[in-house]
């Protein structure tokens, strides 16, 4: 696909898939409003191990059009459920080294309890429904991660 990565305008905040490095400060600033006293963010990192194997990199691939649509749908559902003004999600794609940021979710709310609950809720939904896949790279090979058949 040579099309640019799509973005979907939303009144709540950005929902994007991008190959560029992610900034938490930037996303937080994009979702906050003057009535918000709290932003809670989740930052996904590439960690150096999984199920006992050493991991040297993660490769993320997305179905960008549908991923953006799903992120927006779940973000707006979470915002409505928790009565929020601002939520945004950016997911990175490509090969990322250990320690790099793969995804950022930022949720703004007048008070902290709603921000924490909504951010955790959005992350659970993202992991369940958004069409993004990761491949783990080891010292001796690689494997796509996903729910294995029973």
């Amino acid at each position, binding site marked *: 696909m040579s099309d640019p990565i799509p973005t979907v305008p939303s009144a709540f905040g950005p929902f994007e898939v991008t190959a560029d490095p992610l900034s938490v400060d930037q996303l937080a600033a994009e979702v906050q409003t003057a009535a918000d006293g709290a932003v809670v963010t989740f930052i996904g990192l590439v960690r150096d191990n999984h199920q006992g194997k050493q991991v040297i990199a993660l490769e993320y691939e997305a179905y960008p059009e549908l991923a953006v649509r799903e992120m927006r749908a779940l973000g707006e559902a979470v915002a409505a459920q928790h009565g929020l003004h601002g939520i945004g999600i950016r*997911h990175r794609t490509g090969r990322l080294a250990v320690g790099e940021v*793969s995804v950022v979710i930022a949720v703004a709310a007048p008070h902290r309890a709603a921000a924490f609950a909504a951010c955790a809720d959005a992350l659970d939904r993202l992991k369940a*429904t958004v*069409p*993004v*896949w990761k491949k783990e790279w080891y010292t001796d090979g690689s494997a*796509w991660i*996903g729910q*294995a058949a029973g």
Partner: protein
Amino acid sequence: MQPAINNAAAPAGIRVQARLFALYREAAGSDLLAVQVPADSTVRDLWGHLRAAQPALARADGLMAATAFAVNGTWARPDQALRDGDEVAFLPPVSGG
């Protein structure tokens, strides 16, 4: 042998595009396949067609607990009927985050 793939000359069918991701993309060696199928085909029919034509794709599918489908960027059920020009995506279980 993949007789129905990239065969624009076959009559009485519809032309669709199959998009493949992650494990499926690698198994097929491509992220986009132009396919001609009978006019009454469903998403499930197309998936069966692709797996029959590409044994590596069938093996990859067998590793996954469930494959999800999308037509033209929207989630679709396996019994959805295809129309000429549809883009049909085959999605292994997601693992983002």
